[in-house]
């Protein structure tokens, strides 16, 4: 028997360069489950759908196909909050299909009606804003310039960071949006430089406008250190910018568990970049769905979605990436598990990640973990 899992990400469109690694993350979890041979409900296969990230109609149609034509039992996705909300309302709820999004971070989704079908492994922006403010003010930084990618993710993050940072006595000299995938960021960099600040906070994506702004800032000497949000995390950035990035720092969802490292090793072995933004979250999303199915002993969304919170949170046997087989055994044996995964998943409230963060800095061209929050 076959169990199908929908993977609904923007494989074309503005996020097309980060989605392949996200898709690969999900595939990795599925492969691991299949290879373990412990998944009794059938062979799991991934069916991909293209959400385009921006086109709600296209995303809805793609989801509609996944659900009604391909008959998937759950969806990893979508990626961008806007289309994710549309898919949730127009496809998932009507058809009663569960979704776990690896990257939709909009706080508005927390309050959206979801009939208990929607979860996310990426923490909501609100939490990250606080973490950022903490890190910066602990380093004694009083004023920063901020640039964010002009979508709900960036804007939400900018808002929450602004509030949190002000509460700690810091100032944001300028909060300038940038559009992803544009040709030129000189205007943004010019304004950011003019406004000044001890460093630049970049709330964008690692190989999109965020990278463009950093590149141009370094080239023109506008800023030399950067705070990097979770979307900016990745080896790709260091590769592209190189040595000038030394001294910059940031935080990504994660705990002091070896989960993240382990996932990266597995990713490298599988031939993709595990540090690419939201790739670990995707692994976790897929893994969680499958664990939940096993726990519910059913592929029906109504059944498995009830198990997700349980599995993701303590108490229970901690599960790291690469231990899905073991997890399945435990579940079959009736032992409670606590899925930690690649990003230290901890779901709170309406099924969203609690948000543990791993603070890191870039030294000598490598990412070094500094601590955990």
């Amino acid at each position, binding site marked *: 028997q076959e169990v199908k899992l929908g993977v609904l990400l923007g494989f074309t*469109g*503005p996020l*097309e*360069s980060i989605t*392949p690694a996200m898709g690969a993350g999900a595939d990795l979890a599925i492969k691991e489950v299949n290879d373990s041979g412990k998944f009794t409900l059938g062979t799991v296969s991934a069916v991909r759908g293209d959400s385009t990230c921006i086109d709600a109609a296209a995303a809805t149609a793609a989801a509609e196909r996944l659900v009604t034509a391909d008959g998937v039992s759950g969806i990893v996705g979508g990626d961008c909050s806007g289309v994710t909300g549309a898919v949730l309302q127009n496809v998932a709820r009507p058809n009663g299909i569960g979704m776990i999004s690896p990257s939709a971070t909009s706080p508005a989704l927390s309050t959206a009606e979801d009939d208990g079908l929607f979860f996310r492994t990426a923490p909501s922006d609100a939490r990250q804003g606080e973490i950022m403010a903490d890190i910066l003010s602990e380093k004694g930084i009083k004023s920063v310039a901020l640039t964010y990618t*002009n979508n709900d993710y960036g804007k939400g993050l900018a808002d929450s960071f602004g509030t949190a940072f002000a509460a700690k006595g810091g100032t944001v*000299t*300028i909060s*300038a*949006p*940038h*559009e992803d*995938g*544009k*040709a*030129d960021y*000189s*205007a*943004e*960099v*010019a*304004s950011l*430089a*003019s*406004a*000044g600040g001890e460093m630049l906070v970049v709330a964008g994506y690692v*190989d999109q406008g965020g*990278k*463009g702004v950093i*590149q*141009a800032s370094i*080239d*023109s*000497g*506008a800023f030399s250190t950067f705070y990097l949000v979770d979307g900016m995390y990745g080896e*790709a950035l260091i*590769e*592209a910018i190189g040595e000038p990035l030394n001294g910059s720092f940031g935080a990504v969802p994660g705990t002091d568990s070896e989960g993240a490292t382990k996932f990266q090793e597995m990713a490298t072995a599988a031939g993709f970049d595990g540090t690419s933004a939201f790739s670990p979250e995707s692994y976790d999303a897929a893994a969680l769905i499958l664990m939940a199915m096993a726990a519910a002993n059913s592929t029906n969304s109504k059944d498995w979605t009830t198990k997700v919170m349980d599995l993701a949170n303590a108490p229970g046997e901690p599960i790291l990436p690469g231990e899905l087989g073991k997890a399945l055994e435990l579940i079959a044996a009736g032992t409670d598990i606590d899925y930690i995964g690649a990003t230290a998943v901890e779901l709170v409230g309406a099924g969203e990640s609690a948000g543990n963060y791993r603070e890191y800095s870039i030294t000598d061209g490598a990412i070094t973990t500094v601590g955990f929050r």
Partner: protein
Amino acid sequence: MDILNALVVFLNFVFVPGLAYGAQLALGALGVTLIYGILRFSNFAHGDTMALGTMVTILFTWWFQSMGISFGVLPTALLALPIGIAVTALFVLGTDRVVYRFYRKQKAAPVILVMVSLGVMFVMNGIVRLIIGVDDQNFVDGSRFVIAAGDFREMTGLAEGLAIKTTQVVTVVTALVVMGLLFWFLQKTRTGKSMRAFSDNEDLALLSGINPDRVVAVTWIIAAALATIAGVLYGLDKSFRPFVYFQLLLPIFAAAIVGGLGSPLGAIAGGFLIAFSEVMVTYAWKKVVTYLVPESMAPEGLLQLMGTDYKFAVSFAILILVLIFMPTGLFKGKSV
């Protein structure tokens, strides 16, 4: 009062980047304007032609790099450029043979050709992504800066730095040279004139013994060369990603149109107009003013007319304003 520093800030953050970006747009716009001028339609596939040309160049650059060939301080990509141009030209000629020629024979309306070029755009879009993927590709080597910000500070002792990148210089110079060549070619050479004649009145061009196939072929070859040059220089300065090249289409068209379609001079002027209006209007003048006024009067606010979120809006508003007063662009363009 510190005029020098104010000037350097302005140069570093507004003028130099604006100039480079303007030149990049101008190079793209030259190709668009040429196709419009001769073949009389807006070629939506131009952005993806740029991507294709750049992709080919990148592949050969990598090959050269792996063989240890380099070009001194200049990027190796410039060595691979002719190959990129040749391959792109072949591809584009093939497209013309398979696609556009049919509609030309039919004397189809320009808007149909626009839609056809949209179809070609989708196809090229797919091909480029299938071959090189969607990711950023870095292929720059050689020396990065003519002068870096830090070096400038050390050299001059000023508080502010000025950075000029090799690629920026190469781009600006190339844009001006190419514009001059194109202008000269179209206005002065026999082939160039025959191309203009063909675009003006195809039937009469036949009656003058002009070979239409040759005109079309030459146009496409030049357009392919322009697209590849523009794409490679842009890629060297920023980075190569197919999606961005597609997005470049909009400002490129804006530049070509506001300059006056069909006019090489207009393409250059339009490129700079778009680039500078993007950078200038949303610029926060705080720093410049701070240097200029006595310390006590240093401004609190950012002195920004509009947020950078409106940079496209503003540059478009300026474009519309220009068009209201000059309905066919700065340099009396054509219209079909």
